[in-house]
């Protein structure tokens, strides 16, 4: 299309119509292709631009602006080579080589006089600025002309928005040009901004004010500039409910605050008005004023604040004494701190008797000190908080306050030894230690960063405080809160820089140790432990030396002789697990645990309870490793990987040798080997990740295997580990393990169904290593298919089920990590389907065997679904069919949980190097959902619950968003789950309902009536046959309590009386836990009072 035709089309079409847009695109196309220039366009536009109808003219300008916007910068700024003969632009193109942008800008500026075109004109100027096509010399014409020709506030919002963006851009990109205009720019802008009301514009306007303060000379108009911004204080904007711009009151407050505290020159104007707003009656205005004061004080400095010191203090004091609103209190305390910082920065002048800080602190102390005389009253606590805020501001403030307050408090503490009183007093003192720590630093701060001349005032009271807090901690009276304060005080002292000597810290740690071990109160123990754990982060050597040995001593060398010991030792183990995650403490702790575990495994059965002890020890090792893992994630698993040599190998050798000797005892326990298997897993995963060069051990043990294998590439460490355990567990060659030479020839076949249980138990160790190897690590076997087949054969026939579960994990891991999809298909088609599928579906086969086979099926499906292998979907069809089987339906239903859940032991997770495709859960869900829904409808009534069970597992494990998308379709099924007799199913469904009520209440809205009735029915029927146990009733009540918060009042109101009445019998439930929930839910329904009561 030629330029002329396109222009005609544009002129004909109504503004913003599709035709107009098409014509616009055509014009842009012509110009971009180089067949015409923008100046040609202007030439052609002549008639439109000079039209008598103002709207036609505006249309012409609009077209020009739009074209400028859509063309790249170089088209616009390129020199023009065309002389214009006869056009509106004749006057501007004086020289042939004038910059097009300059021509356009001049044109636009001249159009400013044409009122109806102003909106489009400003857009044009904005586009030119945005593409940086304008020279600095031209740029300073823009504000001049706009300020003289336009009364900005008479235009509509979009026009004003363009104006603010133009000014913003000018300040950003053309600062020197703007500067050359001097204060005229400032005054022009003040006039233009005055009266602005739109939040979108104001956000920009405030930013501009701040930018002007930062870079322009505004001294002449300082007060006006302040006023034009501050007149918006306090911001009361509330975004409309359907707001699409996303501007919040907080955004505006922040922007305005940045203006107010942009310069100390504003202080004389700001202080009187801020003080006035502080005493305003509106809560938000007050908070806003306090926050603004906090931001301003450090900028303004002490001088402007000083005349108002008393006022500020009085107001903030009142605010805190009154209390009641946490956010408000925080703002007030922050303001106290900020003001104290400001006062601290200014020394007294020669004419002043007292420094500003002293003036302010005297006010503060005068109003608060007397409150400490009666420490149990409310004001004592609040006074402490205020002084603490001030004390944390600076060295002089901290010094002045601590030296006045602490002696008073200590005297009070001495005067009355009632535990409650002591506790309150110590609590206040504690705050000052915290404040001092803020000012003078913690033990981990590099001392170079702080001035050594400043010494914490706490040092002067150190000895006394140590005595008081220690005696509080060791007070053996009934009043536990006093001991909690003792522990917290000692902790704060431990953490303070410059405060304690080495031996003093040691004594405190001993006290904390004793508390963790012996205090009768859980809260006190927890506080002491928290202190030790946090201190261990900073000073691990001290804890290693003073703390851990005490806990090790508590661990019995044998099992438990008496039950009373159990909880104590378990607590000690939990303590060690928490303490031992840092680098320094990790290895020694693991080593100690290993020694104890090794002893329990090695000893022959006795009357001690070795098994539970071994469980606790192995569980603790696992916990320590996992805590460590969580912390090492970023830095690779070096320390964990290094456990292979000192931890895994000895444990492996010990277990194997005991099992080969058929030694009874701990070996027969499943849980112990579950834990140890997981310990191995965590270590094996880390081996490849962080352990390339530290391959000391395995050199040693592999020497037995073959000398030249040692030279294999270092990064194939996992492969060697796997080869080693394969030799031992599959081939039964015990002699390859270090130190087990004598056992050569002993029967050891943990993967065979015929072996004794205590050998089969060790299959978990094998699985722990195998399932955590990387995908590239090959099994050392010629025929993987045959190996897997053997594993399945053994697992299917194992009555103890040990080999069923470990076997299934092994098969799943191997298949999931197979090299190619073809390998997997081959296994499925030539081994699984011909050998095992018929049996799974044969009614003649024993049910037990079929159930075991189903376990393998489910794990194989999981392995394949993860890597999106098609056979996985085909196999899952089989499992869905089995949902309709009376004997296997429940297993099949729960199987869906295994398939989609991320398992706790880590098998087939990404961390265990499983091959996973993105969105596999979603794909599987989408595949199964219609099948399950159809199956549900077709199934016999007594089998329907298995479909619902499978569904509930899927729903629990898919991403929330997908679940919410599908919920409308599934709602009827979910509702019928609530009438099932399966308690677990109901609890799971109620979980889903909770989620829907919170995240997608609209879906629940239309079913509100049925939901409420079903929930009430559950709370009413306590017959065990209905499966409404305590757990179910509580869950139903919780969901019912969620309803008023999620569903509209108008929908719920008709149900209110019915619900209250029905809950009247639920609050008489025989079980107390249910009553508790019923009371809470009923209270929520009583509070359902409609919008008026908000």
């Amino acid at each position, binding site marked *: 299309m030629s330029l002329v035709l396109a222009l005609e089309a544009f002129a004909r079409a109504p503004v913003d119509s599709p035709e107009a847009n098409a014509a616009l695109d055509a014009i842009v196309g012509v110009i971009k292709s180089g067949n015409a220039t923008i100046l040609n366009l202007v030439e052609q536009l002549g008639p439109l631009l000079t039209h008598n109808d103002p709207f036609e003219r505006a249309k012409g300008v609009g077209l020009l602006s739009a074209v400028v916007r859509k063309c790249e910068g170089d088209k616009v700024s390129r020199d023009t080579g065309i002389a214009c003969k006869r056009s509106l632009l004749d006057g501007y193109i004086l020289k042939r080589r004038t910059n097009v942008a300059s021509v356009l800008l001049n044109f636009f500026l001249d159009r400013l006089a044409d009122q109806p075109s102003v909106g489009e004109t400003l857009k044009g100027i904005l586009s030119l600025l945005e593409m940086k096509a304008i020279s600095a010399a031209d740029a300073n014409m823009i504000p001049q002309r706009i300020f003289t020709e336009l009364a900005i506030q008479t235009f509509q919002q979009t026009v004003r928005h363009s104006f603010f963006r133009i000014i913003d851009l000018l300040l950003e990109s053309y600062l020197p040009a703007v500067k050359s205009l001097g204060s005229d720019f400032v005054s022009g802008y003040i006039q233009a901004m005055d009266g602005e009301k739109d939040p979108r514009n104001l956000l920009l306007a405030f930013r501009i004010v701040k930018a002007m303060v930062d870079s322009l000379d505004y001294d002449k108009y300082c007060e006006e500039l302040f006023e034009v911004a501050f007149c918006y204080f306090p911001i009361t904007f509330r975004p409309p409910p359907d707001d699409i711009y996303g501007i919040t009151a907080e955004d505006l407050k922040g922007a305005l605050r940045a203006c107010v505290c942009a310069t100390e020159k504003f202080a004389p104007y700001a202080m009187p008005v801020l003080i006035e707003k502080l005493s305003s009656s509106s809560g938000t205005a007050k908070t806003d004023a306090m926050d603004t004061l906090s931001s301003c004080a450090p900028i303004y400095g002490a001088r402007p604040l000083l005349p108002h010191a008393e006022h500020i203090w009085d107001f903030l004091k*009142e605010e805190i*004494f*009154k*209390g*009641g*609103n946490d956010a408000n209190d925080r703002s007030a305390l922050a303001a106290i701190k900020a003001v104290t910082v400001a006062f601290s920065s200014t020394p007294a002048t020669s004419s002043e008797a007292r420094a500003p800080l002293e003036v302010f602190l005297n006010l503060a102390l005068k109003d608060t000190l007397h409150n400490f005389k009666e420490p*149990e*009253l*409310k*004001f004592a*606590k609040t006074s402490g908080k205020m002084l603490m805020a001030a004390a944390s501001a600076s060295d002089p403030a901290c010094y002045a306050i601590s030296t006045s307050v602490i002696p008073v408090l200590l005297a009070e503490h001495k005067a009355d030894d009632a535990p*409650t009183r002591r*506790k309150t007093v110590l609590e206040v003192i504690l705050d000052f230690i915290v404040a001092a720590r803020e000012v003078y630093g913690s033990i981990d701060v590099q001392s170079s960063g702080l001035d050594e001349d400043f010494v914490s005032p706490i040092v002067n009271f150190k000895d006394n405080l140590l005595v008081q807090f220690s005696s509080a901690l060791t007070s053996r009276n009934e009043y536990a*809160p006093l001991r909690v304060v003792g522990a917290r005080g000692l902790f704060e002292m431990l953490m303070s820089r410059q405060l304690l000597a080495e031996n003093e810290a040691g004594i405190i740690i001993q006290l904390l140790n004793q508390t963790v071990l012996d205090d009768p109160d859980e*809260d006190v123990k927890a506080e002491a432990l928290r202190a030790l754990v946090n201190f261990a982060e900073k000073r691990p050597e001290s804890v290693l030396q003073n703390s851990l040995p005490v806990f090790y001593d508590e661990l019995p060398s044998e099992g438990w002789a008496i039950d009373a010991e159990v909880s104590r030792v378990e607590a000690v183990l939990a303590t060690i697990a928490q303490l031992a995650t840092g680098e320094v403490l990790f290895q020694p702790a693991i080593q100690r645990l290993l020694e104890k575990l090794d002893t329990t495994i090695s000893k022959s059965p006795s009357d001690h309870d070795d098994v539970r002890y071994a469980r606790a020890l192995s569980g603790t090792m696992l916990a320590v490793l996992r805590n460590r893992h969580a912390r090492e994630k970023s830095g690779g698993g070096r320390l964990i990987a290094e456990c292979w040599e000192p931890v895994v190998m000895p444990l492996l050798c010990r277990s194997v040798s005991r099992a080969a000797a058929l030694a009874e005892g701990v070996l027969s326990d499943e849980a112990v080997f579950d834990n140890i298997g997981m310990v191995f897993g965590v270590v094996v995963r880390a081996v490849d990740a962080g352990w390339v060069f530290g391959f000391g051990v395995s050199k040693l043990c592999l020497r037995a295997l073959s000398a030249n294998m040692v030279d294999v590439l270092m990064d194939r460490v996992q492969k060697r580990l796997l080869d080693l355990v394969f030799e031992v567990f599959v081939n039964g060659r015990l002699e390859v393990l270090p130190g087990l030479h004598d056992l050569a020839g002993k029967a050891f076949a943990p993967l065979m169904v015929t072996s004794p249980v205590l050998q089969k138990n060790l299959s978990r160790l094998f699985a722990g290593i195998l399932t955590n190897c990387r995908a590239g690590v090959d099994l050392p076997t010629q025929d993987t298919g045959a190996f897997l087949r053997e594993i399945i054969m053994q697992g299917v026939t194992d009555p103890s089920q040990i080999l069923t579960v470990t076997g299934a994990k092994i098969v799943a891991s191997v298949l999931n990590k197979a090299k190619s999809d073809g390998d997997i298909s081959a296994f499925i088609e030539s081994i699984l389907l011909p050998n095992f599928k018929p049996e799974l579906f044969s009614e003649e086969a024993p049910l037990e065997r079929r159930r075991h086979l189903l376990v393998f099926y489910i794990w194989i499906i999981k392995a394949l679904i993860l890597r999106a292998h098609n056979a996985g979907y085909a196999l899952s069809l089989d499992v869905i069919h089995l949902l309709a089987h009376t004997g296997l339906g429940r297993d099949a239903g729960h199987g869906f949980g295994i398939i989609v859940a991320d398992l706790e032991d880590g098998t087939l997770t990404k961390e265990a190097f499983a091959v996973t495709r993105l969105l596999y859960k979603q794909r599987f869900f989408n595949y199964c959902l219609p099948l399950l829904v159809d199956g549900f409808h077709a199934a016999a009534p007594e089998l329907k619950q298995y479909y619902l069970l499978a569904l509930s597992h899927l729903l629990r494990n898919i991403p929330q968003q997908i679940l919410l998308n599908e919920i409308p379709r599934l709602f009827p099924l979910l509702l019928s789950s609530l009438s099932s007799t399966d308690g677990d199913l109901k609890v799971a469904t109620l979980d889903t309902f909770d989620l829907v009520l919170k995240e997608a209440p609209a879906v629940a809205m239309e079913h509100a009536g049925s939901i409420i009735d079903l929930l009430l029915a559950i709370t009413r029927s*306590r017959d*065990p046959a209905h499966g409404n*146990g*305590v757990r179910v009733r509580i869950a139903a009540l919780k969901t019912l309590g969620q309803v008023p918060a999620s569903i509209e009042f108008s929908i719920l109101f008709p149900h209110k009386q019915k619900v209250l009445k029905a809950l*009247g*019998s639920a*609050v*008489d439930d*025989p*079980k*107390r*836990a249910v*009553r*508790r929930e019923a*009371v*809470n839910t*009923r*209270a*929520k329904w*009583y*509070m359902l*009072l409609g919008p008026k*009561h908000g």
Partner: protein
Amino acid sequence: MSDLQNANPTIYEVTKKPTRVHRPEDDDEGVADLFDADEVFELIRHINDPEHPLTLEQLNVTQLDKISVDPEASHVTVRFTPTIPHCSMATLIGLCIRVRLLRSLPDRFKVDIMVTEGTHQSEHAVNKQLNDKERVAAALENSHLLEVVNQCLKTTIDK
């Protein structure tokens, strides 16, 4: 601030979470748990004071040992202690306790709510008002009063 009756009250350390020891029969569906003073205390301890952002427990207005429960006779007696003897809020506090228990205990319970003896100058008048069914009902007809009560009871939710 001056309009508060008692601006600077004594604050008491609250007892911890329910200290009820878990018994094996708690998990037994067949064994009924009887109502006791602990349970009733649990219901009212978190009620907010009308004057302060503090709970009745923090102000020592309600105490466990001032509650007696007779599950056989379905009878509950609650005594509460105003922070100062001339406290004009006493009736309101009592009303809050009354409403909380009306809403939380089964209908079969008869509940007496009384000021602890000797802790309030118009003890009798307050007691009479709080235990007169019709007066309580009439008070709750007053929408402003009900709003105040609901405000005080808000803090009992989700505790």
